């Protein structure tokens, strides 16, 4: 594990920590958003906040795909599963416990619906091939990291003429989500840690407007502790030099221009929706994907009658504020009491990539309480 040590070298972390502190202007407060849930995990697991001066704050963004799915879409999927005993609804494991207005997939399954967890959309297609007398629907979620996989699976279904497979498309696109955050009046940010794996698909170019039009630097960041610290250092360097650019810290995985084949597959099968509701962020224009007319026969939204009802989030749940980075997870009214990974009220606690789950699982809540008590 020599290589791992290189990414985790405590000595290097301290060197970076000192450089970060040296770049901070006295009296100035810096707020950077890590867009991706993977970064949130790394930050909590390795206690990276301890390596940052008090004046540098990392806030969590909307980059967990499960967390941004509104309750109404969960209800729509459950309605599909209950539409007919012939229907088999499939989805990633992360979706199973997400609460909808009428319960979760697990609740619907317990009530008799045939809902199955799959690792890949290809698994769903295989279930369709093995059950030609059933109708198999794949509930597709995720940003541009998973959208190409759904698109490739639909292309495969079309090539093989598989008629009993369809997709309930809930893919969202990261750029409008970031733009909504930038346009939000209640949050002042100094820069972004860009999502590492979404960027393997879209590349770095789509972020350029953030630097050019909003004057905020963005650094595509890897997931190792030193990646995150180095990315913070790169952001501070830009601010120090009066620059606002897009930089790629994770070049060992992220190509500047993304993955053209993946983008081509998405473009062939899907198109932008005029608008889509994000949990906590509301309706955002051109922020999600739907199936193109050419693939209508694979579009569950055209095959099934969906309630399509907007369901308000539970009043006690403050996932919206957490997703926008306005609240730290532990500041939510129900965090760690009514809302835990075992009994989640909100999506941020359900998904392993959610900020609340990461916070809860790595014990930062206790730490904050101890700090609070010490201050009192």
């Amino acid at each position, binding site marked *: 594990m020599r290589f791992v040590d290189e990414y985790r070298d405590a000595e290097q972390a301290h060197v970076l920590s000192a450089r970060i502190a040296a770049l901070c202007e006295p009296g100035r407060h810096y707020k950077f958003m890590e867009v991706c849930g993977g970064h949130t*995990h790394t930050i909590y*697991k390795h206690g990276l906040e301890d390596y940052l001066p008090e004046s540098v704050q990392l806030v969590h963004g909307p980059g967990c795909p499960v967390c941004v799915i509104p309750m109404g879409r969960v209800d729509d999927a459950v309605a599909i599963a209950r539409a007919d005993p012939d229907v088999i609804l499939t989805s990633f494991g992360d979706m199973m416990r997400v609460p909808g207005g009428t319960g979760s997939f697990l609740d619907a399954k317990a009530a008799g619906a045939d809902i199955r967890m799959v*690792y890949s959309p290809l698994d769903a297609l*295989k279930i369709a*091939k093995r059950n030609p007398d059933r109708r198999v629907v794949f509930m597709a979620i995720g940003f541009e990291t*998973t959208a190409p996989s759904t698109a490739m699976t639909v292309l495969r279904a079309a090539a093989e003429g598989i008629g009993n497979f369809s997709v309930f498309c809930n893919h969202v696109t990261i750029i409008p989500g970031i733009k909504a955050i930038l346009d939000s009046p209640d949050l002042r940010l100094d820069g972004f840690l860009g999502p590492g794996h979404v960027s393997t698909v879209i590349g770095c170019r789509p972020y350029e407007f953030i630097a050019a039009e909003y004057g905020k630097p963005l650094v595509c960041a890897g997931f190792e502790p030193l990646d995150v610290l180095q990315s913070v250092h790169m952001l501070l360097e830009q601010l120090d030099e009066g620059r606002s650019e897009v930089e790629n810290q994770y070049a060992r995985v992220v190509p500047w221009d993304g993955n053209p084949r993946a983008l081509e597959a998405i473009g062939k099968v899907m198109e932008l929706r005029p608008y889509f509701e994000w949990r906590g962020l509301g309706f955002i224009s051109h922020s999600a994907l739907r199936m193109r007319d050419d693939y209508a026969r694979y579009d569950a939204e055209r095959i099934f009658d969906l309630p399509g009802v907007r369901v308000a989030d539970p009043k006690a749940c403050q996932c919206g504020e957490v997703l926008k980075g306005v609240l730290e997870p532990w500041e939510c009214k129900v965090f760690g009491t009514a809302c835990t990974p075992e009994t989640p009220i909100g999506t941020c606690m359900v998904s392993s*990539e959610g900020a609340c789950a990461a916070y809860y699982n790595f014990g930062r809540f206790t730490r904050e309480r101890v700090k609070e008590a010490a201050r009192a």
Partner: protein
Amino acid sequence: MCLGIPGEIVELPRDGSDVAKVEVVGVRRAVNVGLLDEERLHLGDWVLVHVGFAMSKIDEAEAAATLELLRGLGEAYDDELDALSRSDLDLDLDKN
């Protein structure tokens, strides 16, 4: 789902199919490499696998570091590996 699991290519696609075999911590599974066609894949190469598709080619150092990072996630990683090991992505198996 979004983190991606590194896998080492142990079998290359055959007969123009997009399916390669990768090994992830002892689990050998079919993976679709159709999104990487432009890159030449060789036995022993490492790829980052998201929901059954190889999304990018990575070097061994990145693979080792990512695996270590994933192990640190505990349950989330176990669930992902468990799902991968129960998955059967080689659609063409039916034809055999």
